[in-house]
């Protein structure tokens, strides 16, 4: 469980490793702005609340570092399609499954998995 904004940002940066530098910068800036604003609101509403107490609920609503990084890394698509393939294809014919091809969506830069290749 994440206990601080700094820890969340560290984990998010780790998840985004290998992504475009501008994407990482934007994602970290957005997360920091949102989490610190939400934290300030939570503490203002209840001065007895510590960062460690408030951050888990704030991070849950924002999304885990894995969830936030997924649109940028395409991991969610891969995980879902591999799970689907695992359920429907692998059990029938393991050799029928090839590698997954992912391409960026023009103008958006989000990886989009389009097909299996063998």
């Amino acid at each position, binding site marked *: 469980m994440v206990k601080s904004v700094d820890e969340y940002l560290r984990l998010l940066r780790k998840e985004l490793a290998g992504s475009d530098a501008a994407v990482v910068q934007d994602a970290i800036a*957005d997360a920091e702005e949102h989490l*610190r604003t939400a934290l300030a609101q939570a503490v203002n509403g209840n001065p007895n609340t510590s960062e460690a107490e408030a951050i888990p609920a704030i991070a849950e609503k*924002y999304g885990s570092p894995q969830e936030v990084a997924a649109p940028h890394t395409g991991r969610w698509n891969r995980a879902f399609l591999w799970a689907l393939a695992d359920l429907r294809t692998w059990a029938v014919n393991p050799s029928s499954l090839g590698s997954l091809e992912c391409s960026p969506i023009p103008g958006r830069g989000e990886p989009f998995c389009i097909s299996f290749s063998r």
Partner: protein
Amino acid sequence: MWGKNKNVDETESADKKFQKELVSGVAALVLLTILDKAAEPMYGYQIAKVIDGQAEDATVLKQGALYPVLRSLESSRLLESRVEPSVSGPPRRYYQVTELGRATLARWREMWNQMRSFVDTVMEGEGNGQEC
């Protein structure tokens, strides 16, 4: 028992996929609409609170998923933003709709109404195609 769990897993995966596709399809329309209705430019946390207040299940759209859509709308010139310092935290990026964004939103509303009407018609229709 294993088969039952497998069916539950498959159902949950299908539901999550459908929900994800629905949300990703309408997120830009929702954000553009909220910002169009706003009297002043808004920053991400404010937008998230508006959605929280209007969604029956706010977990449908994780707050962190809003920001890439905002960035994408800005790169498409439908939104513009400026960063301002905050007294209680890091600088905030304020978004507002551009003229191009308003014109686009008007078209998207029309498309949304047509799509909603189409889906309602299909779902409420009786015996679709069964008599052929």
